[in-house]
């Protein structure tokens, strides 16, 4: 079973890695925000699989935190996009 978890984990990792590369190259801000979402789901899945494989029960907590922060990161990315919160723009207006 351990091999299965690790294998599945490795596969998800490859897929997440590929998607991540795509999004980092992606043209617009929306792609970048998707990267955050992806890291929540993909990262969470990898954490669960690898954690189960290595017998670390607390991996659920890591996955929990990753899921929670993925939502936060999507919002943070909104905050980081141009025009969303430039103090200078705000003053010049």
């Amino acid at each position: 079973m351990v091999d299965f978890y690790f294998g599945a984990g490795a596969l998800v990792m490859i897929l997440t890695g590929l998607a991540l590369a795509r999004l980092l190259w992606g043209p617009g801000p929306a792609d970048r925000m998707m990267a955050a979402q992806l890291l929540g789901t993909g990262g969470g899945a990898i954490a669960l699989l690898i954690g189960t494989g290595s017998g670390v029960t607390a991996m659920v907590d890591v996955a929990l935190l990753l899921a929670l922060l993925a939502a936060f990161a999507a919002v943070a990315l909104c905050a980081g996009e141009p025009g969303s919160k430039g103090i200078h723009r705000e003053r010049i207006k």
Partner: protein
Amino acid sequence: MTMFWDAMTIVFVSTGVFFFLAGTVGLLRFPDTLTRLHALTKADTLGFGLIAIGLLPQSADVRVGLKLLVIWLILQFAGACSGQLIAQFEHRSRHSS
């Protein structure tokens, strides 16, 4: 009995990984942002859910199992909201430029 649960885990996790595969393929192949968004949020959230269900029988106690479900719920909720956010963002930036 463990055999049965293990088999269930293998089936669900494999299906989950398949959905991740689908999501990634969609992301790599689809032409524009909104369709990519569609591929990613739907497929990955589903994939994660399946993996979580697959791991349920393996969880050490009820608490761990419960947490697995909570994670899935959070991801679904966050996925829905951030999907909306991203779509709106994209929409506005298209119309402003």
